[in-house]
């Protein structure tokens, strides 16, 4: 059987895990997974684009740049600025995560010329029309959960820990998440998310990983919403960890600053 072409970059990147490491606990594995920040959401600067495909095969593109700063364990602040499609160019999104309170979110739409605070039960909602929800990006469902290590499974040539994560949060859209993380670098290679009805709702697949300044990033990935037959492919085109950001870079004022 032919292997899909998208697997090639995955096969070519990184190095196989060592089999002689002692097995960490489920909590430790999940902690490593969250700390690995393989999407660059806490302490990196990226430029990326996404291809959205609906059930009829119609596609649309989304390009953006993002910067983020780690505020503490599990919390960060990030600012996303969109550059494509043309109509969306200049729109920005600011998220400041709080340890023990609701996250603060602001949206800047250039044609309105000012930002708006976004509140409400937004976590289950899609982020800018993609198949990633706000909850997928804030990763609180993983952090605030009961986790168990259900075994080891290879994905292609990579040995992976297989975790079963049961989110505890009342506002979580998922009842269960299955997660496969590489044993050597804790990069998530696959996730299966089950909704509250215990039906498979989304499948996340890592298609390519890249190492930048010693840190592993998922540079190409795909999220498929099984129920809506909608797909988002996310490409991190440029990744930088060298830039240092101050808190002033994550304010409403910074958000409203043109491009």
């Amino acid at each position, binding site marked *: 059987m032919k292997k899909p072409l998208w697997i090639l970059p995955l096969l070519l990147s990184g190095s196989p895990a060592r089999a002689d490491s002692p097995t960490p606990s489920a909590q430790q594995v999940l902690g490593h997974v969250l700390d690995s920040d393989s999407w660059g959401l806490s302490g990196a600067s990226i430029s990326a684009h996404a291809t*959205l*495909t*609906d*059930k*009829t095969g*119609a*596609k*649309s593109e*989304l390009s953006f740049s993002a910067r983020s700063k780690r505020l503490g364990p599990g919390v960060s602040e990030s600012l996303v600025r969109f550059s494509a*499609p*043309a*109509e*969306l*160019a200049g*729109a920005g999104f600011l998220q400041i995560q709080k340890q023990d309170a609701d996250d603060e979110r602001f*949206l800047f*739409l*250039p*044609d*309105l010329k000012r930002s*708006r*605070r*976004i*509140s*409400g*039960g*937004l*976590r*289950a*909602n*899609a982020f*800018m*029309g*993609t*198949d990633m929800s706000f909850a997928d990006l804030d990763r609180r469902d993983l952090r605030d959960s009961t986790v168990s290590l259900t075994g080891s499974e290879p994905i292609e040539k990579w040995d992976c820990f297989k975790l079963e994560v049961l989110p505890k949060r009342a506002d979580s859209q998922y009842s269960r998440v299955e997660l496969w993380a590489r044993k050597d670098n804790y990069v998530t290679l696959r996730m299966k998310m089950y*909704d*509250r*009805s*215990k*039906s498979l709702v989304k499948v996340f697949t890592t298609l390519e990983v890249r190492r930048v300044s010693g840190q592993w990033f998922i540079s190409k990935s795909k999220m498929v*919403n099984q*129920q*809506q037959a*909608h797909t988002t492919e996310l490409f991190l085109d440029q990744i930088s960890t060298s830039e240092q950001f101050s808190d002033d870079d994550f304010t409403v004022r910074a958000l409203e600053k043109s491009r």
Partner: protein
Amino acid sequence: MRSYIKFVLRWRYYVLVVLFVSMSVGAYAARKMQIRFQYKDMYTYDGNTMLDTYAAYHRDFGDPGGNVIIYIRAPDVFAPAVLAYVNRLTNELAPHGAEFSRIRSLTQVNAVRGEQGEVIAGSLIRQLPVTKEDSDLIRRTAIENPLIVRRLVSPDSRATAVLAELAIPAETASIEQQKHALQVVEGVLARNPAPAGITAGVTGAPEVEVATTQALMLDQVVLLPAVTAVVVIALFLIFRSLHGVLMPMASVSIALVWTAGIFAQLGRPVDLIGSVIPISLLTYGVVDPIFVLTRFLLRREQGLGREEAVLAALDELAMPCLVTSLTTALGFMAFVTATLPTIKSYGLTVGIGVLLVWVSTVTLLPVLLVVFPDPKTHARGLRTTRWAQELAQRLWAALSLRSGRVVAASTVALVLVAAYARTQHVSNEYVGNLPRGAIQNTVRSLENQLTGVLRVIVYIEGPRDSMTRPELLKAIARVDHYLEKQPLVTSSVSLADMIEVSNRAFNDGDVAELRIPESRALVTQYLSLLDPADRAEVVTQDYSKTMIAALAVDRGSASMATLRENLQHEVDEAFRGLDVKASLTGNAVVAWSAMDTVVEEMVVGFVGAFAIVIGIVLIAFRSLRMAIVAVLPNLIPAAACFATIRAAGVALRIDTAIVLCIAMGALFNTTIQLTVRAQDRLKAGIPRSLAINEAIGDVGPPAFFTTAILSAGFSVLAFSSFPGMQALGLLMVVTISFAFISDMLVTPALTSLLIRAPRVDLPLDASLAVREGV
């Protein structure tokens, strides 16, 4: 024909075996028959040009109207206890992803709104309310949101709905799939009974189709035995013997089984139209055996042996029965030209069935008459025949000298009735056609309090990204608002609504900002913020297609035609020059247009079938006069039928217009039998009045029995669950009764005036048969 009957009688036991085997084959083939009521059967046919757009709409946007609906009523549905109940139902339904693609309810729906520089996104209800203030805030948000009000909640807050959209669109789901989905919802309701003060019930398109299918099955279970009982009683009253009941019933039953086997091979389900087939065949099918049995008993009374009596009876009747069966069958088969498969298969099946009844009458019945002993009490049966004979002849005696006046008066009456019946109201219905009782009442209540059940869709196609153009969105908003003002429309939602609601939310909730912004970029930005599942309900990913979805109450296709016409005009105006294609679709458009066309076709088909039968009479008997005689007596019952339709305020729709198909079987037979017999007597030199008197004596009793049986048989439809079937029963009784009266009054008078010289040459067999009957 005589040699065929002799052959059958000679090899009678082999014939019985062959008939038994063929009946078994028919029964085996018929096992695949499926009883099903689905509205799509009424408008899905090759050549329906509207189906392509309808399919495209379904492909892009699913079937948003195909929901199982839990319809909840309470004094205030925003009260904490009611919302908690709604939430419980929603959560219980959510795990059934195999059955339902999406659950919508007040506790699940998203609503974006704006307040004091803040945009509140996500769920309408983030936390279930505890206080009245919490409830009022949710109420205000919901009622102000055009995407929620009259979809999920009534404007007076007294009704709400939990909508479970079928994973397989309701339009394409089978009855079994719909039934399974309903069982899931009913199970959830059973586990979660409504608290005090709240009523909850299941409705929606799947519930309606399943319940209607069950009503259709119940109809078959009730009506077929009822018709059988009526026919059995009528046979007993005529023949006063078990024999007289069993033999005609055996003859017609085998034909029914054969026909059922053939019908199953057509691959059509037994739907509302198809459900009339067994009733039609049973009542019509028993007529020929009655004629034969009556004549057999008369011959036996004259001292003939059993075989001789059978041969004599069939010598007289086989060919006339064939001619009348042929005319009846061709009349039915004329509907094969109809576009709707269900009408085609009805015409074809009944046409074939009528011919099979004739085959069984000349094959099984003679064998049974010879194999089984004579009825012991047939003399009493003959008394009924004589009574009917005398009655008919007395009537003729009273009118024989006034033939001209009878014809003139009949013609005037026909003209007057036709003038009255000329204007017919064609209007198909969905809700009005549902079985009376709980099913119809719930849907009517749903229409009145919450939402209509008919979908009127404006499906808009354009180049990629075109749906983000403000000028196009304004045109969509214009049509959307136009629809909202229509009395039939309960709600209308569109992409414009979503943009308007977003614009208002991003402008501090200012009502004045409930509008389409001028900036295309801003429109795109709003769209990007929407949840893909919500957005996908009204626009495709590439923004090339969108729709305006209105739900309307059902007041019949005539009202809908007016709405459609006006809407088309509005759509043409609104989208002119905008480089998009806007088409009307949805079940209210596609189904209603198709069904109205089918009704018109049935009327035209009836006229065609009428002309075909007149043509057959002309050709078969080579007599223009006979053809002319056949016109007036058969136009009168047709006109009476149309007049009754108008007088009773019954609209011409698929289930009532089918009377035109069925009535073809009741027309012409007596006219032809009577005219042929009178003509043959005239040919034999018998004086005119006496010839007609004798012809009436021959034909009157069986015609009377036939009328009685057919009327009684079709009147059983009064017990149908379906209003249309009840009306059909009434119309059949009127048509059949007028056909008999007309044949007893007008046909003899016309025969007396027009059939002068016996110059026609009948086909040899027919001539022999008729001569033997004199």
